[in-house]
């Protein structure tokens, strides 16, 4: 297993190199990071040249890529050239934003998995029941809704719910703008109140689509195992319905869904970007939007590489999980 993981990581290095090079060329063609400085009144050509030299944009693209790559692997991700950011350190900005987005993605994925698996199993056990049909219709509906629309709807109801709370004399509970602030200060109850209120709506909006996918997938895989020979054998031996479902069918039916969840991370990440925009979180979404709008090459490169590496890692996690959960699969 260890050897397989190492080999897979080695294989993904050339892909990452080509990917980062293409991204680099693309980002470099995005525009001239010096144009804003040039347009400013009172800036001389010498100032522009000095900035060009300090950013290294006066050299050919291959040299620049190599410079970027060598400093990137050493942890120097460069500085932002966007005005108003005071040449912020890309590493700090991107990792901070990644942490904000990761919290959202992790909570939403966990919730989607637990609920999706539960609903999928129930729908499979009670196939063609009212519950099954309702779950199927809701899943189809959720598939067809853009994440940001779900977020907008939840946000509008959240605001109305808060208004209801204040009219009853209670504090506003649901936060509809911004991630949790102030860390873990205050009493235990306060922290729970604050964090649940902040995370509830964004997590719910992000969860919905993955939940739909997982519940459909879990239902299909559960139906397949329920009709397999070893489940019939277990029933024939006289085991109780609950034991057959949970001990024999459920455990094996979980395998494809868990793998799907690991592969799905990239898509959930895209959804998180839109959810953040609606709820005003300063995560990867706002970093991307401002970096693209302000022609910020170093920031974009940092962003792209972080996301690309996450996707590679989670694809590997999916493969390893699959082999670990299903002993019939041997990674060589």
């Amino acid at each position, binding site marked *: 297993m260890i050897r397989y993981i190492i080999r897979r990581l080695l294989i993904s290095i050339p*892909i*990452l190199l*080509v*990917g980062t090079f*293409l*991204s680099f060329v*693309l*980002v470099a*063609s*995005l*525009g001239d990071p010096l144009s804003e400085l040039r347009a400013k009144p009172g800036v001389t050509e010498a100032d522009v040249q000095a900035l060009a030299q300090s950013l290294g944009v006066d050299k050919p693209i291959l040299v620049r890529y190599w410079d970027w790559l060598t400093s990137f692997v050493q942890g120097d991700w460069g500085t932002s050239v966007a005005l108003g950011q005071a040449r912020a350190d890309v590493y700090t900005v991107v990792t901070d934003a990644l942490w904000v987005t990761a919290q959202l993605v992790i909570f939403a994925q966990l919730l989607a998995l637990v609920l999706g698996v539960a609903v999928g199993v129930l729908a499979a056990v009670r196939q063609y029941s009212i519950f099954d049909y309702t779950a199927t219709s809701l899943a*189809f*509906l959720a*598939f*067809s*809704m*853009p*994440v*940001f*629309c779900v977020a*907008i*709807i939840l*946000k*509008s109801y959240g*605001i*109305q719910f808060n208004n209801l709370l204040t009219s009853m004399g209670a504090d506003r509970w649901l936060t509809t703008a911004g991630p949790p602030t102030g860390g873990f200060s205050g009493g235990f109850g306060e922290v729970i109140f604050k964090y649940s209120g902040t995370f509830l709506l964004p997590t719910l909006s992000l969860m919905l689509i993955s939940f739909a996918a997982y519940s459909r997938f879990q239902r299909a895989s559960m139906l397949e195992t329920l009709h397999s020979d070893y489940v019939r054998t277990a029933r024939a031996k006289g085991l109780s319905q609950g034991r057959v479902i949970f001990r024999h069918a459920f455990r094996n039916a979980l395998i494809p869904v868990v793998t799907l969840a690991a592969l799905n991370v*990239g898509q959930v*990440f*895209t959804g998180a*970007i*839109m959810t953040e*925009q*609606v709820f005003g979180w300063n995560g990867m*979404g706002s970093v*991307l*939007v401002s970096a*693209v*709008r302000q022609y910020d090459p170093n920031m*974009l490169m940092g*962003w*792209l590489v972080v*996301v*690309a590496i996450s*996707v*590679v890692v989670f*694809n590997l996690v999916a493969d390893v999980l699959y082999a670990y959960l299903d002993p019939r699969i041997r990674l060589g």
Partner: protein
Amino acid sequence: MADVTTPTTPGPRPASATAAGRAGSGHEFDSAKTRTQGQIVLRRFLRHRLAMTSFAVLVLLVLFAFAGPLFWSFSYEDSSSGSYLAPSGAHPLGTTEVGKDMLALLMRGTQYSIEIALVVSLLATAMGVVLGALAGYLRGFVDATVMRLVDLLLILPYIAVAAIIIRTVSGSWYMVALVLALFHWMQIARITRAETLSLAQREFVEAARACGAGTWRIIFKHLVPNMIGSITVNATLTVATAVLAEAGLSFIGLGVQLPDTSLGVIVSENYPQVVQRPWLFWGPFLVIVLISLTINFIGDGLRDAFDPRQTKVRA
């Protein structure tokens, strides 16, 4: 139940292989055969109630978007009405901040969104089928290159790359469609490749090759017609994916740029009003959901219609 190895293909009917044996009248015979196959699929699809209802709703939506402006009294360019008028007989969905009629805007946005989605689906399917079939038929170096390209595009976050290209070139609707197509052909390529790998082993392909058919002729005359089912289904589902992808990209402000518009742009511009003026949000929202929902159902109906093993709808 003749064939279970290729569940999504319309069965092992290498029509062109028989045609090759009857050189003279072969073509006529061939097309008659194909029509029968098409008729079976069409009959199955027409009897699929959910798919047909969805199809009717979709046709109404297309009429609304493309024929609606001819009959509607306001133009999407006309901003002479008052700002934020409430819904009334003259403006069923109210007006926007700058005083444009929401219904007229919605027609315009739906037009663009449907056009973008169709272009994405056609281009992505064409790219996916050609690259996937080449990879599966030629194998070796071509296969390795195409599959690495797929891997590469899957690790690059499309939302960022699309945003960068659109920012550099232009935010017109066809550019957005081109860029989105560039990131939506991989799934189709993988499916086509897998089906080509198994079809290429069949005798009719070998026979065609023995007759001297070239790579392109084998791909387009012998392989593609035999996997038309899964290609059609996936092309349909790509339309739904593309509607949502375009809306998302435009929503965060990195997709379609004014003066072009789309449903995503309309939602993005009006959603801050969702509490005070919900109609400005629910109109475009409903159209997005209806488009992607109906297309998903149509795709499902097509899948059932093309599947020779299905029993839900009689042929």
